[in-house]
């Protein structure tokens, strides 16, 4: 299996070579000295690099941290704007509902008025003559008109509910 290399593989191989030289008893003092000088030279270079890399890394981490803090601030701001939007949305929805209710109520009243006129004409032209023919009481016609008048409010409620349901369905259908 191939061992996965890391970014310091060259430095690791230099160290490994020197360690082998130290452990090799057959190696001459001059060669060992040369190996030691190479190690010192590489160490010096590595130390210089480490200083640069640490400094660069710290700076970039600070940059990342600053960006992260900025993101958090923006996230909070977005949250606040979102809450405000939801609130305004609710106010708008309530206003729409009130407007719709008023519009539906107006429409229902018009329909009830029309029904009342039709019922009045119907009772005057068709029912009144029948009552006059068949009864002697003068209050029967008045009683009938009273019933019609009392029925107008429940009819108004039923029509208003029906129109409201239809309006809500239409609103929900809209994308």
């Amino acid at each position: 299996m191939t061992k996965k290399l890391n970014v310091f593989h060259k430095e690791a191989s230099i160290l490994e070579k020197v360690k082998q030289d130290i452990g090799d008893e057959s190696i001459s003092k001059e060669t060992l000295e040369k190996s030691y000088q190479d190690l010192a030279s590489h160490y010096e270079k590595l130390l210089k690099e480490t200083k640069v890399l640490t400094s660069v890394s710290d700076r970039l981490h600070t940059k990342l941290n600053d960006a992260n803090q900025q993101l958090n601030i923006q996230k909070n701001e977005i949250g606040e704007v979102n809450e405000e939007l939801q609130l305004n949305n609710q106010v708008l929805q309530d206003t729409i509902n009130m407007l719709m209710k008023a519009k539906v109520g107006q429409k229902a009243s018009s329909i009830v008025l029309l029904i009342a006129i039709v019922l009045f004409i119907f009772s005057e032209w068709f029912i009144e003559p029948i009552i006059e023919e068949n009864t002697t009481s003068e209050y029967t016609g008045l009683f009938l008109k009273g019933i019609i008048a009392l029925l107008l409010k429940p009819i108004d409620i039923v029509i208003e509910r029906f129109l409201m349901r239809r309006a809500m369905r239409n609103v929900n259908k809209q994308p």
Partner: protein
Amino acid sequence: MDRLYIKATENTPKIDFNPSLEQFEISGKSIPEDSLGFYNPVMDWLEEYAKSPSGRTVFSFKLEYFNTSSSKVILDILYILEKISGLVVNWYYDEDDEDMEETASEFNEVVDFEINLVINE
């Protein structure tokens, strides 16, 4: 040598080494999990190019952000570039990005050529 082109990804930069145009560019974000795995073919290509470079080599770094292991590899790339004659190295950064400017200055201290600091347009 043939052009070396590696498309940028979410974590790795775009590599575009074009010897015929004498333009060499590393740009984008460099935060690969395996930096050496990504940059090894790039460095092998550069080592090969350094043996017989064009008369002029314009090398541009246009990096937005890089992780620590990438900074080590960038340093290794700079060492390879030291071997190339007729070299111009440009380090691009945003005007308000002092971090990238200072980073380039620090890299400049460990190599034996001048890194030109260029503000992005």
